């Protein structure tokens, strides 16, 4: 009989086909969807994230695992919702206005998803007003802002200020991107900063105090 450990291994190895058969099998055997998520999928992506952080695997290999997790989530998500179980953390992420760079931002989103966050990706060239609108709609715990151009760093500053001015004082704001530094993050009043995707999960958790 298959076990939760088998599912975890299948996700780590990016074996989508196995995941596709394992998930219904495990559910049928009586295991709760939430247990599959918390005991197989999230720990699996934790292992993958760690391997990536240690330069043991490349992004394409990490994304194969992420897709395997998604395969499982396609089945689990409706069941979790039915049971009234929502992801513990909701995160919004986007690249600030005027900036089209998104590879780094997408990787951060992948890492967050791997950690079990519900991630809403607003894309690139996102004006402050759009961030605020989305905060009001999705009530996230954390908002990630990415900027790659020195000339869009001011847009990041303006976005942080606009979110605060709109009264969203408790949502945690995490920033990153090649020209961004911890001191810039402090200067513009962000709650967290991470220099790369691999540490973005820890940075988010730290900002959330979990």
């Amino acid at each position: 009989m298959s076990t939760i450990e088998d599912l975890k291994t299948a996700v780590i190895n990016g074996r989508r086909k196995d995941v596709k058969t394992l998930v219904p099998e495990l559910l049928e055997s009586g295991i709760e969807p939430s247990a599959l998520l918390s005991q197989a999928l999230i720990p699996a992506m934790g292992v993958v994230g760690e391997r990536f952080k240690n330069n043991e695997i490349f992004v394409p290999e990490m994304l194969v695992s992420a897709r395997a997790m998604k395969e499982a989530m396609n089945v689990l998500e409706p069941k979790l919702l039915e049971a009234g179980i929502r992801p513990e953390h909701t995160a919004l992420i986007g690249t600030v206005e005027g900036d089209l760079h998104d590879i780094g931002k997408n990787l951060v989103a992948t890492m967050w998803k791997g950690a079990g966050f519900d991630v809403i990706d607003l894309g690139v060239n996102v004006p402050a007003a759009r961030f605020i609108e989305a905060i009001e709609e999705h009530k996230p715990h954390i908002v990630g802002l990415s900027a790659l151009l020195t000339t869009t760093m001011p847009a990041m500053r303006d976005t942080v200020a606009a979110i605060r001015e709109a009264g969203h004082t408790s949502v945690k704001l995490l920033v990153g991107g090649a020209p961004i530094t911890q001191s810039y993050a402090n200067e513009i009043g962000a709650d967290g900063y991470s220099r790369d995707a691999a540490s973005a999960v820890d940075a988010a958790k730290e900002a959330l105090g979990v």
Partner: protein
Amino acid sequence: MKYKTLAISDPAKLIYGVAPNPIETRHGMRIGGGLIYPELNFTLPDINIRKEAMPEIARHYKQIVTEALERAAELEAPGVMLEFETLPPMTEHPALGMEIVNILLEGIERAHGKYGLKATLRCTPNDNREFIRPPVMRSGRYWDAMLELFDQSAAAGAEFLSIESVGGKELHDDALVNGDLRAVLFSLCVMGVRDMNFIWEHIVAIAAKHGVHAAGDTACGFGNTAMVLAERKMIPRVFAAVVRAVTAVRSLVAYECGAVGPGKDCGYENPILKAITGCPMSMEGKTAACAHLSPMGNLAAATADLWSNESVQNIKLLGGMAPTCYMEQLIYDCRLMNTAAAEGEASALKMRDWLVKSDAGLDPQAMIITPESSVAIANAIVASPSHYAAGIAAARAAVKILRETSEAGCLRIDAREAGWLDRMEDELDDMPDTEDAFIEEMMEEVDLEKFTPADYGLPTTASA
């Protein structure tokens, strides 16, 4: 395919400072005519570009051109190219871009009058078409504004027109992070080639209208994205190296449409293009570490006709403002190389070979653009009947070079990358025979929300 043979078929003739088709500037620089010249590129520090900030922005550019050219004159540079690579709002609103173009042209003329310095300007508007998602590639306000800036800057006196065009990039970033060579070939050789044909027909016409030079494009958004990702250990270096070889097919289209060089600095595929077209090329290497890291800091100079720093912010360093410091570095590099060349062909070759040898064995991406590799890849491209076939041939040639040089102990490939050569070879073996068959297959697979097939002259669905 326009080019059927190579302009430089002997790797020993693929060397810095010399191109079969040199270009003469108004002040008398002969690019590719024997000397390698510096090409300075610069950008703004942390500033929000809007109309109200223009006085401050103008002060930055005035300071850059004045101080950097003064230093160039003091160091007796035989000539200097300045590249004004605009920042997106400066192309979106051509009046903003033109304000800077005029400042730079005035600075160039001032330095010519005051010191007799030969200098010239390359204007590189942004390809802002992707500000709309999916991008609108053949019309619309971003397209119109871009052409307007090309036209006005050429009319004002910018002698060289370039761009880092983005056609095909809608699918390429995903192709890279997924290590998907098939999708790379589709992005570069099917989509990219079609867009290059479209955009370069316009740029060449504008250049002809004003008697200036359509210089060249770069697959920066493709090859350099791969290089930066490889440098950060996100994708295998061997994969990035093969992507680089394929980018040459896309960038070549500018020359097929009538561009004459010098090719743009960040096109590390330029040595391959120089071998094919004989046009002079700009390159960047160690001097561009201010903009991004690379594994071929010396090697990149080996075949360059202009030597660039890619981009540096106008910030204060201990030696002076950063663009002035970089101007000095570029001039010293060029001076050394020109001194070697002045002692004759043998010394120039020695100098070139040192530049090559110091990097080539340490990284697949460096190995792929040595003079020998460049000529081999160039040969594979010109022997192909179509851009599609050329992309596959370039990738195959690249895999072969990497395999052979590593087996011969001349190239170090990381153990965890070794399997990627087989993986890429398998993908190439599975490519359909014809482009039409490939397009048909890919139209079933690609995300049609990311691009508009009609903008590339592609069918909307496989069966259409």
